[in-house]
């Protein structure tokens, strides 16, 4: 990448640098590493990146998209303010949607975008009256179990002009079936609906969730992708999330490797189902964390963009550029936020937000400062959104795409993370993804990183401001969000009333029909027919989320594989 003259000059200058260094610091050696453990030097020069082909960096909008998937990044179209915002009952979530919209939360091209995490109950595919739901209804997201619940959120919204992120965990299929039936009743055909499902049936290798057993999970993810690819051109089918990998303890290399390995495994399953990668990869999206090691996190995102492009082109023979352009949401790190001196988290999240923008994310959630204490309050959620507004309007950063490109250190680190992550991917290839899941290999790797992270803090090797250094005796009191405990009872009563007034014979017959189709799909995969239409039929017959997911659990197997 450099002329011979520049290389010679670099050698001479480095020599002078070393002389000065030894004059000031004698034998004292500087030793440091990135958060993922990559050793770093105190200074980087052209000789550190001369091995990198210029093609690997290139310009924004060109393969391998290291510098971004569009020729321009934020100049005309800022990132989507994709604040994660659900809680409680549907109408409470709607209030929060309105509050953030009024506070200036914006989507792409005038469409409003709502990122709706569901509570743990809906994410598991349970109705609120299930014994497992006790104490958890409306916690960590909105509770949805029926079409009526959807109406409580969306009753007056133009669904063809609204983007929703239906973050409903393992209940992906039942969740979307409810939304399709609801939308079509309101006159919005499925092909007009925009947004995305997470399709997070691959979450259990990394996080401690009960889930469809591994082989079934892959069948179901592919079935879902197959249906959407053929029926919902505007719907993003699958979200590959590094965020919860990072939250479970993963470092930058693990986040890159495990997300890419997951994308590979799902792609292979879809090919088995008879799909061509160019048919469905353009509708994959991603979600990553932005944590504390500022430059490593930016390098991670740049490396991941290029890794995905190369994997899809070289491994899967993709030809469409859209199959190689990785679209992402960044969620600023939640596990980096501390309960001690919570106001300090505002500054942490601001650095994470800045890092996400310098990484060239397409959509962004900024965590609220009180997340180590509870769900965000209106005040803290608004402040988090303002952090994004500040970066957008006051820093001048969005004027230039990928403004850190060409930094010797950043380019070296981007290349290094790609190489290290590729070594891990090779390891997973050798083991097989399902085996790595079933043996608990992924979880063990993450637990090991999480333990080291915690130990380094406890021993004081890693300073955490306000926790193990600059500790204050005086407690910083901030208001904590309280969820009205009565909402659980309301949700339980609503679902019971819903079941009491519907035509139960019709519902039962649709659920029986679903069971038969599911058995055949499971047994004769991938030639056993289509599953999603039968789930939609059940939703049309007023089956609840928990009932539809219940049938799938029964047929496809449910539990802990590791």
């Amino acid at each position, binding site marked *: 990448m450099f002329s011979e003259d520049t290389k010679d000059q670099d050698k001479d200058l480095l020599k002078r640098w070393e002389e000065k260094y030894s004059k000031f610091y004698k034998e004292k050696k500087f030793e440091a590493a990135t958060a993922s453990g990559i050793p770093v030097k105190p200074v980087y020069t052209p000789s550190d990146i001369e091995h990198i082909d210029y093609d690997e960096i290139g310009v924004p909008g060109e393969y391998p998209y290291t510098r971004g998937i569009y020729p321009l990044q934020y100049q005309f179209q800022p990132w989507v303010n994709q604040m994660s915002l659900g809680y409680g009952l549907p109408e409470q979530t709607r209030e929060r949607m309105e509050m953030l919209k009024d506070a200036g939360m914006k989507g792409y091209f005038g469409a409003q975008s709502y990122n709706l995490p569901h509570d743990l109950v809906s994410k598991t595919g349970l109705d609120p009256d299930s014994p497992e*739901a*006790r*104490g958890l209804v409306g*916690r960590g997201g909105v509770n949805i179990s029926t079409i009526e619940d959807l109406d409580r959120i969306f009753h007056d919204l133009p669904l063809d002009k609204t983007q929703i992120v239906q973050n409903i965990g393992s209940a992906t299929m039942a969740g979307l079936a409810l939304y399709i039936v609801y939308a079509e009743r309101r006159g919005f055909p499925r092909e007009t609906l925009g947004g995305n499902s997470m399709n997070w049936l691959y*979450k259990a290798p990394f*996080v*401690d969730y009960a889930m469809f057993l591994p082989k079934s999970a892959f069948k179901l993810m592919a079935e879902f992708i197959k249906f959407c690819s053929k029926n919902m051109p505007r719907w993003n089918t699958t979200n590959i999330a590094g965020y*919860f990998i990072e939250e479970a303890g993963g470092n930058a290399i693990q986040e890159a490797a495990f997300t890419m390995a997951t994308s590979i495994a799902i792609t292979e399953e879809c090919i088995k189902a008879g799909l061509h990668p160019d048919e469905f990869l353009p509708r994959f999206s991603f979600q990553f964390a932005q944590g504390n090691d500022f430059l490593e996190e930016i390098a991670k995102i740049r490396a991941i963009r290029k890794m995905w492009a190369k994997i899809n082109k070289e491994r899967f023979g993709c030809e469409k550029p859209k199959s190689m352009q990785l679209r992402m949401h960044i969620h600023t790190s939640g596990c980096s936020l501390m309960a001690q001196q919570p106001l300090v988290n505002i500054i942490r999240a601001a650095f994470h937000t800045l890092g996400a923008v310098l990484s060239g994310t397409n959509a962004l959630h900024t965590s609220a400062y009180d997340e180590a204490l509870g769900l965000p309050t209106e005040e803290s959620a608004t402040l988090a959104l303002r952090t994004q507004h500040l970066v957008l309007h006051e820093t001048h950063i969005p004027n230039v795409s990928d403004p850190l490109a060409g930094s010797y250190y950043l380019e070296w680190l981007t290349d290094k993370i790609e190489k290290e992550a590729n070594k891990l991917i090779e390891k997973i290839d050798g083991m097989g993804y399902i085996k790595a899941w079933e043996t608990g290999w992924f979880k063990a790797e993450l637990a090991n990183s999480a333990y080291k992270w915690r130990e380094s803090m406890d021993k004081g090797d890693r300073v955490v401001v306000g926790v193990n250094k600059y500790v204050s005796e005086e407690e910083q009191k901030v208001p904590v969000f309280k969820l009205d405990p009565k909402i659980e009872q309301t949700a339980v009563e609503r679902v019971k009333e819903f079941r009491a007034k519907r035509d139960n014979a019709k519902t039962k017959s649709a659920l029986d029909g679903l069971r038969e189709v599911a058995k055949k799909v499971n047994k004769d995969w991938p030639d056993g027919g289509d599953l999603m239409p039968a789930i939609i039929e059940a939703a049309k017959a007023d089956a609840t989320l928990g009932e539809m997911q219940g049938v799938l659990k029964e047929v496809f197997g449910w539990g802990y594989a590791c």
Partner: protein
Amino acid sequence: MATTDRKIRVLLTKSRIDGHDRGVRYVATRLREAGMEVIFTRYRDPDDIINSALQEDVDVIGLSFSVGGYLIISSDVMKLVRKNGMDKILVIVGGIIPEDDIPELLEMGVSRTFGPGSYGDDIVEYITAHVN
């Protein structure tokens, strides 16, 4: 400390529908390192917790919460602890527990809460000093 050589037995448990296990797994490792016998489970409902505690004959029940539900579940657990005459058992609660709710938890019989950032050493020390 107990007068016998019996290791302190601790049940650490979290809801099976909550994936947040980073904190509770860290605590499990630290307690094991301190020589305690740790049983880790994911409960379906409060009865599950009590059944495991009785079966495993534990000295301590540690309940882990990340997104809430601690008041309801802890209250259920304390009622069952009393109903089953488990007077000597120590119930501790860890995770995201706002300060304001701690008095209510202590009132219902929880011995102590450990919030985010708590040190492993403090938890070990507390359990060692209070199990008898």
